[in-house]
């Protein structure tokens, strides 16, 4: 698949501060999550690939073209900035419509598209109120509406779920998941890990301006073989279970949970252990209350990679 | 054993006391932020230029014999009396530099807080509206007094030191009071003026232009009306003229314009009252959005 966004040795510094450090990345059609803590370089990367900043070194291209000072490319690109900033004196509808007219649509088409976009983000009932009277979540939804109203092929969303309530987040997550139909691309950033997990399994981990890892969340996890997988079992007789598990050759380490009811153990062969566990419980009459894998999520992957 | 640096939460047995001057952190922060602006320190330093010239004048006045060749015919100019101090306080350049300092230090005092919705942050602390407004006003007081009261008292002190006697104070015992009164008048008027304009907009750039333009405009308006009708009472339209009129009266000098100085004081008081009224409306603890 041809990459939509290509960056090669992309670096950007602000005075003496290194914002982005030698990032080489190819982003293909579909949804890609850019994940990192605050100050990791996510917004810097987004601004570079959306043409708002020039790289200090390296290069970036979108749809095979340079993006800095290349206005025609923005017919195919939609950007939702992180900042909560608007032309406050207009209504939500006027704002989206005005920006669509700047996009090149006629007044009538801009009006239709604005209505559709605002319907999509559930802002149609408030479209005629001034933006300064909107709540934070409403403003965020208008921002998202302006970014996708012109049906771009590439959508770049910088922290799009900021300020949204849980229902709003679910709606936008669903919208983002539906967007990449017919070969379109979404690049979405967040520092809230469950949000990224809910949208995509393809992630790029960024920290202190560097790419730590990229790919499928599970693939990344598998790569980290040095770090054993943690499994937690809550049962009625943890000590007996511990005695049984200690004899298994794939168990690397074992300890008891603070609650006294849990056995927490580490293994390098997660799949093998998971396949054997049910037989162990049944054969030994262990009544299991729960089995969890505390680090089988993005948080633990990230924590491990950033060295926490 | 390693030194324990973080001892975590401690239970504190002391009595919780409120800050005696709750406006002080607002003022301190405002002054600190002003000095962080590029070129502001240079502007403040440049504003002291007249003070240095007047100080040189005081020195020359005590050494008139040595400088006679330079100041021939200017002996009356170098007579150090209340008129000398009035000249400094009402000099066009000093008033203009005060305006420039207010443009830097005062334009964003309330405008920036309104723009960034910081009023809620202020009023979610035990801070009353008057503490907030006084704190902001005190930033202006600081800069105005730094350019009026401080140089005024230094000039007086240096005159006493150079002359080696208290003759000036014996002759004009009310002179220090005049310096204080004029400085306070300027501080209150400029604080009212600056905060009034700063509260009118969330755009600092617009307020910057307003501070400069209204001052200049009032003077131009006076010039236009006086030039046409030759009536000195039009001086009441000019902020600068009113300050100069009141200043001259405070120093016991003949006023530059032929109308009662009390009228100037009334106009300046009116400006302060309007400022208080507008600030009470504009600075709200709760933002009502329609």
């Amino acid at each position, binding site marked *: 698949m041809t990459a939509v966004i290509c960056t090669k040795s992309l670096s950007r510094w*602000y005075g003496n501060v290194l914002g982005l450090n030698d990032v080489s990345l190819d982003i293909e059609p579909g949804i890609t999550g850019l994940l990192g803590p605050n100050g990791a370089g996510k917004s810097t990367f987004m601004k570079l690939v*959306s*043409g*708002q*900043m*020039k790289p200090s070194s390296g290069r970036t291209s979108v749809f095979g073209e340079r993006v800095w*000072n290349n*206005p*025609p*490319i*923005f*017919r195919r*690109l*939609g*950007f939702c*900035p992180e*900042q909560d*900033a*608007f*032309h406050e*004196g*207009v209504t939500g509808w006027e704002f989206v419509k*005005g*920006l669509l*007219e*700047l*996009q*090149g649509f006629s007044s009538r088409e801009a009006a239709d598209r604005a209505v559709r976009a605002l319907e999509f983000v559930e802002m149609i009932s408030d479209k005629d109120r001034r933006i300064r009277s909107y709540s934070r979540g409403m403003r965020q939804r208008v921002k998202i509406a*302006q970014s996708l109203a012109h049906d771009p092929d590439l959508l770049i969303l910088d922290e799009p779920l900021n300020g949204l309530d849980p229902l709003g987040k679910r709606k936008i997550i669903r919208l983002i998941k539906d967007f990449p139909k017919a070969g379109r691309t979404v690049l979405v950033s967040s520092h809230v890990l469950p949000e990224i997990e809910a949208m995509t399994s393809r992630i790029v981990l960024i920290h202190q301006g560097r790419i730590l890892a990229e790919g499928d969340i599970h693939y990344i996890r598998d790569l980290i073989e040095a770090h054993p997988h943690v499994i937690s079992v809550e049962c009625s007789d943890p000590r007996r279970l511990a005695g049984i598990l200690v004899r298994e050759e794939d168990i690397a380490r074992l300890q008891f949970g603070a609650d006294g009811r849990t056995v927490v153990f580490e293994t390098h062969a997660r799949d093998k252990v998971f396949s054997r566990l049910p037989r162990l419980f049944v054969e030994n009459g262990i009544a299991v209350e729960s089995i969890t894998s505390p680090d089988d999520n993005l948080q633990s992957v990230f924590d491990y990679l950033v060295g926490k | 054993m390693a030194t324990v640096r973080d001892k975590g939460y401690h239970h504190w047995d002391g009595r919780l006391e409120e800050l005696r001057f709750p406006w002080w952190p607002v003022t301190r922060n405002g002054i600190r932020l002003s000095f962080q602006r*590029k*070129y502001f320190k240079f502007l403040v330093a440049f504003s002291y230029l007249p003070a240095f010239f007047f100080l040189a004048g005081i020195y020359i006045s005590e050494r008139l014999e040595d400088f006679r060749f330079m100041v021939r015919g200017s002996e009356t100019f170098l007579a150090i009396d209340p008129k000398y101090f009035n000249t400094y306080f009402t000099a066009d350049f000093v008033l203009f530099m005060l305006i420039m300092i207010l*443009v*830097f230090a005062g334009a964003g005092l309330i405008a920036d807080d309104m723009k960034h919705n910081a009023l809620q942050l202020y009023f979610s602390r035990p801070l009353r509206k008057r503490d907030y407004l006084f704190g902001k006003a005190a930033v202006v007081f600081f800069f105005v007094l730094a350019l009026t009261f401080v140089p005024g008292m230094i000039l007086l002190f240096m005159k006493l030191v150079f002359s080696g006697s208290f003759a000036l104070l014996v002759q004009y015992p009310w002179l220090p009071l005049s310096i204080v009164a004029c400085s306070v008048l300027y501080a209150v008027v400029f604080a009212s003026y600056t905060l009034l304009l700063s509260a009118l*907009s969330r*755009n*600092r*750039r*617009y307020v*910057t*232009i307003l501070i*400069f*333009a209204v001052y*200049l*405009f009032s003077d*131009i*308006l006076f010039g*236009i009306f006086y*030039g*046409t*009708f030759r009536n000195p009472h039009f001086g009441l339209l000019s902020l600068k003229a009113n300050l100069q009129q009141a200043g001259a009266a405070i120093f016991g000098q003949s006023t530059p314009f032929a109308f009662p100085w009390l009228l100037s004081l009334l106009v300046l008081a009116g400006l302060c009252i309007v400022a208080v009224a507008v600030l009470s409306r504009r600075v709200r603890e709760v933002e009502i959005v329609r």
Partner: protein
Amino acid sequence: MIRTFRSVFGFYLMLAVRAPRARAFALLTFLPAVLAVVFRLSFPARSVEVLGVFSDILVVFYLQFLLIILALFYGTSVCSEEIEGKTLAYLTTRPLSKSGIILGKTAAYALLSAAIVLISLAVSFFVMNAGRLSAGEAAGTYLRYGGVLLLGIAAYTAFFTFLGVLLRKAVIIGLAFGFGWESILQYFPGSTQRFSIAHYLKSLLPFTPKAQGFSLLTFRLEPTSDAMSLVALVLITGVFLALACLVFRFKEYISEE
């Protein structure tokens, strides 16, 4: 670029007209008209004073105060308001040429300023000169004054747009230029005066400096010919707009976060 210009022009003209500041500036700009009514009521029979008041006082007010204030605010706003308001991304992530953005916004703000000023000038001019000049004379003189103010708006707005694109603290420099440089230079002899925009505007005014007596507006003026003044003002407008477009095209604007 023409498409960009048109769409940016329309959008920002709408925003500018709606802004409360436009009403405040309109109020300020109408003060000369109010003054004109006051003066005219005060001088019903002394027509010489009437003409003198208009040309020596009110036009000074327009030329050396209002024009500069309006152009300074709107010219610096072209770029600064997008950076301060953090809305620049909405423009730079659209298929709009950067030159078109600058030209479109500048034109929108210049048009608004021009409309405000010309309406005010019309009222004050006709109040002051009604019954004194023939219709043809009045129209011609008004058009000349209007043309001078239009050229002034264009030149000052272009210059302040360039300042706003280039510098962060453009307003302070603009104030120093508008009320310092432009005022002081008129006292300099010879060709020095030609380094100010005000010189060319005054040279185009529809009256000559008084042989005797004092004229505030044309004090120490050594006028340049009409043709040269026109060319100079158009050149100033064109050059500073071109420079603004060039700088905006290549400069990065990073919001203070």
